């Protein structure tokens, strides 16, 4: 038997109450919840673990959407704000619009799809462990400090409109600074030499990379109704760590281990 969806009107509702309402619906066995007139309410989907939950958000959800979420699918019909998918474990978030700063911070698994562009510090400290590998696809461009201290997972900057400026930040040595695991793919953009930070290395993708990116981009396109083929025929570049300890030499000279203290 197909379940009907539950519609909750979020207009003027405080975020604590709204999250309580969602949890109450979940406890009653609802698995398709639609939130109408959402405007800035924080922490939606935070900590939820029901793998079969579909949460649809109409409007603009507030900070920390899907924080520590493990399982559900969230679809946002509107723009997103900051810190989406913060420390998220698994599940999927798809935003039909733009995203703010510090998305996917410390993300540990699952998928984050942003239809348009995102702000600064996206994918900082993203990580992976065995089968848990987070994937992020950004349809437009990203700001400085993309993938700073990245420790795992895959991030794709799709650059759908083929911008030729500030596709992955604009300030010196901010792109993937301190990356020590994981990978970033940038489409159709000649990454300027001054952008990559300490420990970041640019390489052409190999066949396995292309397949991995194809699968992520197809999933992204599925949510937003785009044709993946023309997007995937464009060139891309891969950014990976030069080594597993990017600051090894950096700190050694400044703070010698044998300083006579031990």
């Amino acid at each position, binding site marked *: 038997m197909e379940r009907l969806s539950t519609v909750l009107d979020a207009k003027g509702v405080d*975020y604590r109450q709204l999250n309580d309402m969602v949890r109450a619906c979940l406890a009653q066995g609802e698995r398709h919840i639609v939130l109408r007139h959402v*405007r*800035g309410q*924080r922490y939606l989907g935070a900590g939820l673990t029901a793998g079969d939950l579909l949460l649809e958000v109409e*409007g*603009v*959800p*507030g*900070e920390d959407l899907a924080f520590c979420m493990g399982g559900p699918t969230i679809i946002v019909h509107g*723009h997103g*704000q*900051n810190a989406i998918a913060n420390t998220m474990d698994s599940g999927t978030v798809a935003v039909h619009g*733009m995203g*703010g*700063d510090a998305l996917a911070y410390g993300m540990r698994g699952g998928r984050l799809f942003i239809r348009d562009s995102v*702000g*600064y510090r996206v994918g900082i400290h993203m990580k992976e462990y065995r089968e848990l590998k987070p994937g992020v696809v950004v349809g437009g461009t990203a*700001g*400085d*400090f993309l993938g700073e201290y990245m420790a795992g997972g895959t991030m794709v900057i799709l650059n759908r409109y083929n911008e030729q400026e*500030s596709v992955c930040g*604009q*300030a*010196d040595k901010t792109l993937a600074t301190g990356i020590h695991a994981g990978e970033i793919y940038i489409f159709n953009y000649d990454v300027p030499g*001054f952008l990559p930070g300490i420990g970041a290395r640019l390489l052409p993708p190999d066949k396995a990379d292309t397949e991995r990116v194809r699968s992520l981009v197809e999933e992204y396109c599925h949510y937003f109704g785009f044709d993946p083929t023309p997007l995937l025929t464009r060139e891309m570049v891969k950014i990976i760590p030069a080594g597993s300890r990017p600051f090894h030499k950096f700190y050694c000279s400044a703070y010698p281990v044998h300083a006579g203290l031990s």
Partner: protein
Amino acid sequence: MCGIAGLISLNRIRENGSRIKKAIVLQNERGNGLGAGYGVYGIYPGYENLYAIHIMASSEEAINQAAVFIRRWFKVQKQEPIPVWEKAIRDHPYFQRFFVETPESPALCSGGQNEDGYVLEKMMLMNKEVSGANAFSSGKDMGVFKGVGTPRDIYDFFMLDHYEGYSWLAHNRFPTNTPGWWGGAHPFNALDWSIVHNGEISSYGINRRYLEAQGYFCHLQTDSEVIAYLFDLLVRRHGLGILEAAAALAPPYWATVERLEDSERQEQLRLLRIIYEPAMLNGPFAVLAAFSGGMFSLTDNTKLRPMTMASQDDYTYFASELSALYEMREDLQQIVTPRAGEPVVALYHEPAASGEGVTA
């Protein structure tokens, strides 16, 4: 994590505070009830050529001393209590406003400076000399209303439904390193400049020493006040444009400057950075500033605090969180998040009837 909201009618169409209230109340979670405030331009028609001085004081005695001080240095056209609704906030200072002109006798003006300079100098002097009183708003045809409370409390306390202005600033404070007190709420004002700020100014010490050497008196126990004085210094006194002042306060990285192909721009940025090194703001900040010519936002060049904006039908809207933009207008077509260090400037189409021209 303070909250910011602003709106400006480029055609100077007046409205009451209900839209800006919605935008800042939506961001209630960004503050903690220890400070909120509003700045509004175009609210004193009939008095637009007079300086409107808002005073807060800890006692009636202090109000009286402030009145004596103001009457000594200015021609007071009108003095009245600022109306407040005490049910919103019971424990509050005393408020009084004065509509004043500078004296005609040039002997009273020190150093041959203009009217604006005279007014600011006397405000600084009053804040230093009159114990328990503080002039927190001194521009023409504008006013700052602020204090300790949530954005809703402060709005209701000052009854801002009853004021109509063509640009509004709002702030929701989350005091971190400095006390939450009535004078420490935002906006901070110097003549027609008002600023609201989210973040912290780590360079406060050097900025303050620089400003104090130029005659400014930093007395509000908070870092943000230096921003208002810096804009006053750079734009009014030194004659910089808004974009030049923004480049001095939030300069691009040296590496970015070195890479510029436009050598004239490169040299200009170098000079600004060298000349105004002690004015440079360090630390995370998003600032929204309003003045007689319009309104603009500015963030630090690593974008450590959020700012979003939208422009539609001769209005420009600013907010820390983009959901708050929709509180001011439901059908916004395009939202913009300014890049790090990039000022977004919205100027009125026409200068005010009494206003001076300001360039971007």
